């Protein structure tokens, strides 16, 4: 009888441990999912820069001599400080993009659009112009 009780307790502990692992992995997956859904992507092709967040893509005219964005330095609710490589310049230079006037011109509510964005990354397609 004692052995049986011990066996039942052991099974119970194993089940709890198993569920805890599942729960923890769900929580971490959820964090990854939320992070991916809070990330916006900056890229450029030809003379246009694209800022993409979820299913919305904002495209705007950019500098003629821009070769490539290299690093996001700071994201401040619509104001992006970015390092970019420009034609004829040996080193990457700091550049600034203010999305708020662009969003206003496009009749997009800046507060509503920018609020869920927690992070901005640079993302180029394989076939993007360099």
């Amino acid at each position, binding site marked *: 009888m004692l052995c049986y009780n011990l066996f039942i307790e052991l099974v119970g502990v194993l089940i709890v441990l198993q569920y805890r692992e599942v729960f923890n992995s769900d929580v971490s997956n959820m964090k990854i999912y939320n992070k991916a859904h809070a990330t916006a992507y900056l890229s450029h092709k030809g003379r246009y820069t694209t800022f993409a967040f979820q299913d919305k893509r*904002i*495209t705007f*005219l950019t500098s003629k001599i821009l070769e490539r964005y290299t690093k996001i330095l700071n994201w401040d609710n619509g104001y992006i400080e970015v390092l970019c490589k420009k034609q004829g310049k040996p080193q990457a230079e700091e550049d600034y993009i203010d999305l708020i006037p662009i969003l206003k*011109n*496009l*009749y*997009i509510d800046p507060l509503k659009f920018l609020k869920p964005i927690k992070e901005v990354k640079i993302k180029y397609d394989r076939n993007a112009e360099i």
Partner: protein
Amino acid sequence: MTEMQKFKVAQEAKIIVSGYAFVTKDDIITIVNLNKSDAHTCVINGRGEVLETCMDPIEQVIALKIWKENKEFLEEEIA
């Protein structure tokens, strides 16, 4: 885009063709698709060069085609 905003755009628009409203200010033309619930807008200059947009490329082509066909009605009348 709220119904109120759409109403305001429709009132400001110089012409509306196939649900696309054309609002002009100086040399800048803002094209707004009034058929969509969210913002589908394209800002172009007088030469038809896209300056800012949140339309997809196919919709841009449609909007620019409508603009080309009707741009004579957007020009300022000379008294």
